[in-house]
């Protein structure tokens, strides 16, 4: 049986892993490559890096860090932030990443999803979506709107419609990141995660808000999510306690959720 995946997600700034609360107030955690290695040895299922320097300051992607991580980490590795065109995608893949995450840029130029999928395969293209709960209107029927540029710009696009379009364009996975829940540690937005997972056939990743293993279990039992992103609960000193991957997996297993067994 295909198991549910745990993805460790890191925001990277100048080669350092940094942590924000609802897209603001960043503080540094440690060197990106070292943190990636540690969490790999802790048997995380996948790793995602968002290069926030590249995306916010329009700088080139930090390929040196991508390369270092790829040399030391032998689980799938996704890189996002600052990808502007097919050549950027190629550079990231050549540096050793498996997947590319596109977000704001894909909203501005949806054709990049199609071009990326055609050039490198759908499995490489993760469409990451920043979703915000809003009032249901004729235009935004799901009650969730897509935001871009680190949640600073609202697009007027319906999140559910964008998700379906992303699948049609050739995205291999959808990451649903809740702006409302991000950094709150109160759990994922199950409503929109579930809506999207039911509407598409490709895997959906729940993101934003996990503070303890029960939140992850909720995402897997109450929605069709295939994977869940965790970050703060793994390493943030601002939480009352952190959880090692082994403990999270044990708790999920106890609840009957299939996970990749932790190797002792």
């Amino acid at each position, binding site marked *: *049986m*295909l*198991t*549910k*995946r745990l993805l460790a997600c890191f925001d990277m700034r100048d080669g350092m892993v940094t942590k924000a609360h609802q897209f603001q107030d960043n503080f540094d955690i440690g060197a990106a490559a070292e943190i990636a290695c540690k969490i*790999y040895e802790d*048997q995380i*299922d996948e790793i995602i890096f968002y290069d926030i320097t590249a995306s916010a300051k329009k700088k080139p992607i930090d390929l040196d860090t991508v390369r270092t991580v*790829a*040399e*030391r980490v*032998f*689980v*799938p590795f996704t890189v996002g932030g600052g990808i502007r065109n097919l050549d950027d995608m*190629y550079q990231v*893949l*050549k*540096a*050793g990443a*498996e997947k590319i995450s596109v977000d704001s840029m894909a909203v501005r130029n949806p054709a990049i999803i199609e071009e990326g999928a055609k*050039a*490198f*395969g*759908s*499995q*490489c293209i993760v469409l990451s979506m920043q979703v915000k709960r809003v009032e249901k209107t004729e235009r935004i029927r799901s009650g969730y709107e897509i935001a871009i540029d680190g949640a600073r710009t609202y697009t007027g696009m319906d999140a559910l419609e964008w998700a379906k379009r992303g699948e049609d364009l050739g995205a*291999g*996975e959808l990451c649903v990141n809740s702006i409302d829940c991000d950094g709150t540690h109160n759990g994922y937005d199950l409503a929109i995660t579930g809506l999207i997972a039911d509407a598409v*056939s*490709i*895997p959906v990743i729940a993101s934003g808000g996990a503070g303890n293993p029960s939140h992850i279990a909720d995402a897997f039992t109450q929605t069709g999510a*295939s*994977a869940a992103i965790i970050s703060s609960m793994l390493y943030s000193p601002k939480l009352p306690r952190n959880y090692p991957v082994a403990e999270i997996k044990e708790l999920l297993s106890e609840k009957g959720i299939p996970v*990749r*067994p932790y*190797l002792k």
Partner: protein
Amino acid sequence: MIGVIDYRAGNAPSVYNALKKIGGEVLMVNTAQDLEKIRGVILPGVGSAGATMDSLTEMGILSPLEEKVRGGSMPFLGICIGMQILFEHSAEGDIPCLGWLKGKVTRFDKRRVRVPQMGWNEVRFCREHPLVENMGQSGHFYYVNSYHVNPADENDILAVTDYDGDFCCMVQRDNIMAAQFHIEKSGPLGLKLLANYLRLVEGGQPSC
């Protein structure tokens, strides 16, 4: 020396990194001449069967590779698309493939399961072989695939995985070996399997 065939749509760097990690001597294979320098060859793959066949054709590497593997006895290890193109036909793009093994490549039914299959799934080994020695009865490996092989000869099947029923996830026939899952991205178990391949190429038996 192990060669990793390096083509634009492939993920040769990941396989290269994994081989380096377990102490392998690795050469990125870009030309037919490179095949002369190696004792074992790995064909990694992501993307589509058609794009992979086109890339290999453009590189002018197909017939020298066939000569080494089928004519000679160079241990070949295909990964993901590198497994699928070994068969006669792929439903992805409805194209003929290498036909080194008998059988066809078909798509998972997206009305029944999410496609692609993406994530860690259990691989159950069907029989003994040096490639899967000391791996136990089963283990979890990382998959990303929308298509899977259907060998015509059941004797070619080395392992199976359940995704909408059992499908063949590893094959072995003589010196031709392949896996549908990403050996290079399957954590410690993947590295262990790759180390078995290294030993097999070096001619020794895998040890405990």
